[in-house]
Each structure stands twice: as structure tokens, then as C-alpha cells.
């Protein structure tokens, strides 16, 4: 429960939630100023995973940069690959064949499911102390890991999307395995929701905590499920559509204040569960849209040299809008690439949302924002 008024009796304590901590969100450090258990100020200290990815974009060519985009958000590597591929394809006017577009949407939505499972709801449960739902989530994730491994050979950082298409075509029984998994997953997701989301302690720890109004969410630059939980109905797949999303039917879940206030942590959890259900719907439709024409990659010149200029292109990754601001100078390498990620804004917004919370509520807030360290630091 958030404490609205901060009592100023007693001295303030400076506490360090150091870069090494038993949470799954990576190396993030918070310096807290607390009055007993109630926080008066939070300052995030970031940069512990700054791997100079943007500098490397200026050193290697466009095609060689694809594995690095995996590591920008490793839980949603397909979406991150797709963002970079889309940025280069837009500025170089490359047309992607239809089968590659459908395959990209299939892998994107599969990735959205497993990213929400591990990072969005599983890690949230584990940070609140419930380890069992996390293990349930990992069990579902392992099945999808096997399915994606049959496609591209890797379990975590895929490097599967190429500029102009994708790398390999779908294996023979990919559709059957995925549809079988989806039939198993829908009741498993309901079971997960009953185990974690309908639990009384879970609800009490998340309801009314860390409320973000719609105006604040837009002003601080929150995107993705965090923005939708605060009541703003905006999804890049619907408002600025790309690939084959205009032809697919799906809903955009928006936070409705199920347990009281719109924009609290329980809304963020609920939006992610609903998004997983919508992804299952999209996957079932996408498998019916695979064309017979088997070209999966456009023909590119041996050295790709897009025209000089700048462009901003974004896709809807599980953590929000992932956009590349790409500046080219006519050569084979980018002049400057800047990736805009959702967790960066969420970390920056934590300072304003956490005034008056208790320390345990801060942990729930950070977990509900679904921040991940490489997106913050790049």
C-alpha cells in the first residue's frame, strides 16, 4: 500500500540496492534515501551493462550488426532483430517477400509470449517471493525454446532475421508443433493466472501500488504495456502498422483498474497476461496466411549502401516501442544508430513514481515495469 504522506521524524538513511541482487532484471543499482521503511528519494545508477552497442554500429556493416541487436533485448531477440532490419529496409527501399513477413510475425509473437512469461509475469512473481510460478513459466518457455531451436539453432539470441527477409524457412513440422503448444498453453496460462494472479497476497502487494496516470505516463515517455496499463490505448501494431499486422484481428488490452486504480502494478500484470492471450490468437491466424511462394529473402547487392539521410523506425517489442534512429552517410556502415528502448524510460520514471512507497513496494514496482538491464544501458 502506498503511503501518501511522508513523516519526517527521525534521520534519513542512505541505502544501496547494489548492482548485484537476487532479481532477474540484471545489474541495476538504486540509491535510496529512506526514513525508516518509507522512501523519500530514489536515484537509479545505471551503466553497469553499457556495452557500447551504438559505437559498434559505426564499426561493422549493416548485415554484420544483426547479432548485436539480439543483445539489446535478449528476452525478445526476434523483435529486436526485426527493428534493425526494418530500419535498414526502410531507408534502403528493400521489399521483403510475403512469406518472410509472415514468418517474422510468427516469431515475433512467439517471442512476445516467452518474454512476458519470463520477464513480465514470472520475474514479478519471483521478486515478490513466489518461486513456484516462476518455475511454471520456465517450463512453458522450455517448450518454445525447443521449437525455436528447431528453426534457427539457438535458444536465446537467435540472429535469425536478415535484412531483406529471414535466414531459413520453417521446418516441416514447425506449424504442428507450435499449434500443439498453443493448445496446451491456453489452459496453462489460465492455471498460472489462478496460481499467481488470483492469490490474495499477490493482489494485496500489487493493487494500488505505483499508480501512474495517463498524463504522467506520456510525459515521462513510458511505452508498451506500461503505457497501456495507465489507460492510453496505443499500440504500434495497430496505430503505425508494419508487416502483415493490418490484416490480423486482435484486441489491444488497456488497463481498467480491476482492483481499484487505473495504472497500478496489478494493471501492468493483467495487461501482460491479456497480451499473451492476444498473441495466441495472432499466431493461429498467421499460420493460415503462409503463402506457397517460398522466397524468404530479397536479393541484395553484395555491399549494401543506403542513401545518405536519417530515419526513425519503430516496432512494438514486448517492452514497448523499440525504435532505431539511423543516420547514414552513403557508405556500407551506419554513421550513427541510436536505439530507443522502453525500459530506459521506465527506469527514468521510477524516480517520480516511488515517492512515499515502502522498500518492498519499490521492488514490486521495478518488477512490474519489466525493466531489463541491457535495454537501459545498451
Amino acid at each position, binding site marked *: 500500500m502506498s503511503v501518501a504522506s511522508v513523516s519526517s521524524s527521525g534521520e534519513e538513511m542512505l541505502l544501496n540496492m547494489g548492482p548485484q541482487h537476487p532479481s532477474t532484471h540484471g545489474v541495476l543499482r538504486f540509491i535510496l534515501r529512506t526514513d525508516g521503511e518509507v522512501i523519500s528519494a530514489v536515484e537509479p545508477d*545505471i*551503466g553497469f551493462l*553499457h556495452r*557500447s552497442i*551504438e*559505437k559498434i554500429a*559505426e564499426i561493422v556493416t549493416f548485415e554484420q550488426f544483426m547479432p548485436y541487436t539480439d543483445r539489446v533485448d535478449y528476452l525478445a531477440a526476434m523483435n529486436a532483430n526485426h527493428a534493425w532490419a526494418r530500419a535498414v529496409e*526502410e*531507408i534502403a*527501399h528493400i521489399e521483403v517477400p510475403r512469406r518472410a513477413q509472415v514468418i517474422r510475425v510468427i516469431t515475433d509473437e512467439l517471442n512476445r509470449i516467452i518474454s512476458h512469461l519470463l520477464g513480465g509475469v514470472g520475474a514479478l512473481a519471483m521478486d515478490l517471493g513466489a518461486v513456484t510460478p516462476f518455475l511454471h513459466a520456465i517450463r512453458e518457455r522450455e517448450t518454445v525454446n525447443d521449437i525455436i531451436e528447431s528453426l534457427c539453432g539457438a535458444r536465446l539470441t537467435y540472429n535469425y532475421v536478415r535484412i531483406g527477409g529471414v535466414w531459413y524457412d520453417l521446418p516441416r513440422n514447425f506449424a504442428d508443433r507450435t499449434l500443439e503448444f498453443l493448445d496446451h498453453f491456453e489452459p496453462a496460462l489460465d492455471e498460472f493466472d489462478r496460481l499467481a494472479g488470483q492469490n490474495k497476497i499477490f493482489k494485496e502487494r500489487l493493487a494500488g501500488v505505483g499508480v501512474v496516470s495517463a498524463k504522467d505516463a*506520456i*510525459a*515521462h*515517455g513510458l511505452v508498451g504495456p506500461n503505457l497501456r496499463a495507465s489507460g*492510453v490505448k*496505443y499500440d504500434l501494431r495497430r*496505430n*503505425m502498422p508494419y508487416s502483415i499486422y493490418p490484416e490480423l484481428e486482435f484486441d489491444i488490452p488497456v488497463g481498467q483498474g480491476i482492483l481499484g486504480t487505473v495504472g497500478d502494478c496489478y494493471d501492468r500484470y493483467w495487461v501482460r497476461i491479456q497480451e499473451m492471450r492476444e498473441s495466441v490468437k495472432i499466431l493461429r491466424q498467421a499460420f493460415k496466411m503462409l503463402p506457397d511462394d517460398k522466397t524468404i529473402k530479397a536479393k541484395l547487392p553484395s555491399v549494401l549502401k*543506403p*542513401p*545518405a*539521410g*536519417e*530515419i*526513425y523506425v*519503430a516496432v512494438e517489442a514486448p517492452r514497448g*516501442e523499440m*525504435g532505431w*534512429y539511423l*543516420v547514414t552517410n552513403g557508405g556500407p556502415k551506419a*554513421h*550513427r544508430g*541510436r536505439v*530507443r528502448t522502453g525500459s*530506459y*524510460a521506465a*527506469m*527514468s520514471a521510477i524516480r*517520480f513514481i516511488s515517492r512515499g512507497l515502502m522498500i518492498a513496494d519499490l521492488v514490486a514496482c521495478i518488477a512490474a515495469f519489466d525493466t531489463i538491464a541491457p535495454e537501459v*544501458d545498451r
Partner: protein
Amino acid sequence: MTSDEIIARLTQKFGAEKIQRVKPEGVPQPVAIVAADTLRAAVKYLQEDPELDCGYLATICASDFLPEEKKTKSADGQEKIEKIPGRMEVAYHFGSYAKNHRVNLKVVIPSRENPTVPSIYSLNPAADWFEREQFDLLGIQFDGHPDLRRLLMPEDWQGYPMRKDYQQAPEWRGIPTSRENSHDLFLKRLAAEEAEEAAEEKLS
């Protein structure tokens, strides 16, 4: 509204010397180059005008351009060398959720020494960390930012890493910043063994 229409509205309000529309050949999105002194007014207009309503700042991206020489052929076939001075550019990408449109803005700083740009932190709190990061990596001062210090690199890091002429120091607080390639080590060992064998043969 499309980006072009938004840029046309800005040009109408602030005049053509302050707002200049640029769309290089083959590039799908136009950019509006804004003079540095009208940046804050232009951003305020974008946010407050009810038809534009661009309250969402997506990103601030600063780039560094080194001075270069371009060879051009003039009309009578003579080769001329044109010197282009170095510059820095700070690009902003604004968007609107309600009206569902986006626009790119850009400020060009004509020199790479002491680059300064007005800060838009007081207009949009999302700009806080974006500006701190560009200061950290490129050394651009944002006038009016309350707390401009390093964000991603350690506090005692020297230099601005994303500049094109950045050279890395050989060590930081005692940790060496390069690693010998195992292939190079193997070649060294091979060369040492061959030198030893050659010395032995000379003796014998």
C-alpha cells in the same frame, strides 16, 4: 497529419530562416532543421497547439561529423577540393498519441569545440536522461539542464567515447583495456622457438 504538414505549420509560425525542411534523395522521412534559439519555442508550440499535440518525445540522438574534404568536378572539368567543416547534430523525434503522427527535428551545431544546445527538460521531463546520455557520450552541453553529469560511463572516465576521433586510454584504474589475441601469442611463441633453433644451429 503527415510529417510534411507538421513541418509546414512550423515554418508558417516561425519563418523560413528558422525552420528549414530537408529531405535527401531516396530517404522516406523529412527532417526540419531548427535554429538553436528557436528550439524551445518550437517544442513548446508542438506540445501546446491543439492540432499538433506532440507531447511524446521518443528519442534525442546526437551525431558527430568530422571535417572532410570532398572532390567535385566543376563545369569545365577541373577537379576542386571542397572542405566541409566538422559539425554536430542533435536530432529529436516527437510524436502524438491522440493524433497519431510523428515528426523529426534537428539542430545543427556548426563547430565541434564546446557544442551547446538549449535544454528542453523543463518542457518535457522525458528529456532528462536522454540529454544526460548525449552529454556523457558526446560532450554536448545542454543549457538549462539542472543536473548534467555522466550517466552510463564511470564518473572518472576521461573523454567522450562516441566521438569519431576518440582514442581509448591503455588502462583504467589499473585494468588494461586490451587483450592479446591468442593467435598473436601463438605466433610470438613460434617466432621465439624458431629463433632458438636458429641460434642452436649456428652454434653447432
